[in-house]
């Protein structure tokens, strides 16, 4: 077990080095003059980028030297800084990149976490009924919900929600995280925030529910076709007992492993939804940083995402072994 985990960890480090190399090379493809002009534009536009920060970035990324050796050296110094948890200073936010990420990932995580709870609460029962009543009207309805859910473009759906429920009906605020002008305190502030994130939540739940529901249905069908279910039925057990005691528990194996894999990625933020509803989540922050060529932040954010997805894969594999003892270590 320990050996397996160590092997996987080693592999993860290898993957992360590969990812960072690709991201680094991509960033080096940006012409230096372009970066300079962007910094100049930022200086004019009110965001002050101190000279030292820019110099530090040039040194850290070795931007001035674009020979092959220079690129290698730049990558080395960036890696070295990373090992000291130094991701550089963000231009746009004027703070260290790590701080900006930590500061904003909470909002993204909170929203994504609530969304995923709702998603599973709705998707699991619907997926199960669709499977137990295969080819019935219910199954048909679930299939259509699944299809529509995975076919909706996130930006369009979010805009429609915003238009109908915020601008036309006025039930929810159209953007932002809280009403700072009202100066709510305590529980009222929380309620106000909940009201603000209601629409993004709905958007995220509906956009991601399709895939989960389909996954649930496929798994349940597979389990229902297995031998021990036939045995349970042959013993004369009640159908409800067969389904909820024998079948349902076994469908939870893949679901639990999937959840373990998803958990870290909840921190990564939903770029488009956050942009549309103007939430201060990490996705929105990253989008703004990319538009203004904030190199330290882009680099740090991409590494952050890569680490999250590597951890996710690792967690879900480990969880698989914990939940299902039949899985042998490979």
């Amino acid at each position, binding site marked *: 077990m320990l050996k397996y985990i160590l092997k996987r960890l080693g592999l993860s480090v290898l993957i*992360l080095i590969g990812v960072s190399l690709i991201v680094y090379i991509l960033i080096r493809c940006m012409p230096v003059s372009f970066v300079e002009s962007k910094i100049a534009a930022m200086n004019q536009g009110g965001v002050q980028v101190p000279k030292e920060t820019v110099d530090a970035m040039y040194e850290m990324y070795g931007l001035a030297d674009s020979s092959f050796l220079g690129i290698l050296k730049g990558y080395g110094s960036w890696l070295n800084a990373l090992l000291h948890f130094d991701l550089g200073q963000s231009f746009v936010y004027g703070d260290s990149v790590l701080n900006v990420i930590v500061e904003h990932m909470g909002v993204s995580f909170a929203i994504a976490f609530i969304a995923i709870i709702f998603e599973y609460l709705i998707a699991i029962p619907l997926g199960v009924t669709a499977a137990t009543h295969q080819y019935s009207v219910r199954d048909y309805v679930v299939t259509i919900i699944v299809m*529509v859910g995975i076919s909706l473009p996130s930006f369009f759906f979010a805009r429609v929600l915003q238009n109908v429920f915020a601008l036309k009906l006025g039930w929810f605020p159209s953007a932002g995280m809280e009403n700072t002008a009202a100066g709510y305190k305590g529980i009222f502030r929380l309620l106000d925030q909940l009201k603000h994130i209601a629409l993004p939540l709905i958007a995220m739940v509906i956009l991601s529910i399709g895939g989960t529901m389909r996954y649930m249905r496929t798994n349940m069908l597979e389990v229902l076709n297995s031998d021990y279910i036939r045995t349970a039925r042959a013993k004369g057990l009640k159908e409800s007992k067969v389904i909820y005691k024998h079948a349902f528990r076994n469908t939870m194996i893949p679901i639990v492993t999937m959840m373990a894999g998803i958990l870290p990625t909840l921190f990564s933020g939903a770029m488009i939804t956050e942009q549309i509803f103007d939430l201060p989540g990490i996705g929105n922050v990253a989008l703004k940083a990319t538009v203004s060529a904030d190199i330290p932040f882009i680099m740090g954010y991409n590494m952050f995402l890569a680490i999250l997805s590597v951890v996710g894969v690792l967690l879900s594999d480990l969880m698989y072994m914990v939940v299902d003892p039949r899985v042998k270590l490979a």
Partner: protein
Amino acid sequence: MEEKDNNLFPETEEFNPMAETEGVAPIEEGEKPLDRNVRLMSPGRMVARRFFRSKLSIIGLVMILALLLFCWFGPVFYSRWDERIPDSNGQIEYNYKTFQVEAADGTTYEVRQVIEVRKGTNTFAPPGPDHLLGTDDSGLDVFVRLMYGGRVSLSISFIAVFAITIIGVILGGIAGYFGGWVDNVIMRLCDILMCLPGLPILLILGSILDAMEVPGESRIYYLMIFLTIFSWAGTARLVRGQILFLREQEYMVAAEAMGFSTSRKIFKHLVPNVLPQLIVSMTLSLGSMILYEASLSYLGLGTQAPNASWGTMVNLTNNEDILRNYFNIWGPPGICIIIAVLGFNFVGDGLRDALDPKMRR
């Protein structure tokens, strides 16, 4: 969906001359010969039958065909407006200015000067006979841009999916067939590519394209090339997994014994057997490619105005006035995206059920 009978040979009434051979025992009165009960069908026909039995796949097919016809033949028949040339017959707006004029006898008159303003372009025209879906903020006809935008969105997605499939089949096939260190290298590369965050990477590439001053209409092609380079990993894994399984089958041992060349074994015996899964995954990824392209254009990275693409047209919602008041500008492109993606997903699902009866959902 509708599958009630799983009998692969449901037809009993029809007579098939192919099935009748010489030397069949004489048929007794009132008894049907066995060979008249069966009807021979090629695998392809069986797949087609199963596919067309599902209503959803037919609906999907109709949706896709309708969109293709609309986008490619639409502009041929409806050429009143162009994609990039705004309607310059703006309405005339009347304004007036008031002047106080003192006449010779001392009374003051109020004089109004009527100013006739001919707006250069016909912006924000409501839907009507002139413009079926109205015009957008720069006086471009929405209906016509819908057709041109669809051409971009659909053709780019097709090309990207084909490219991804070709790269995936070649690399996955090599990895699965040869195994060993080749397999290891290719699969680790896949792992890395799978961990690359998709949209943020494309955002970086977008700003690189900005820096290189790539013209607006060709940006999306570059981005889709990058997208192809980053997304073949899934297909390669699928192909590799299948080939690992198929390699151990008896018919491959037979092929080995026949002394076939390696390329013949891979491309003639292994790849055709991966094809069903491949076709299904291609159809399904067509849908996601359309979504990807639309998202990129929406974020302003892909096709840029005045060139049309469905995502770019929805991008106008960043202007709150348009979002609030002009659904006719940004609604139709969004609906087109949904129809396209939904269509491909329906067809992909139908194909999966039809091609692989064991895997029936």
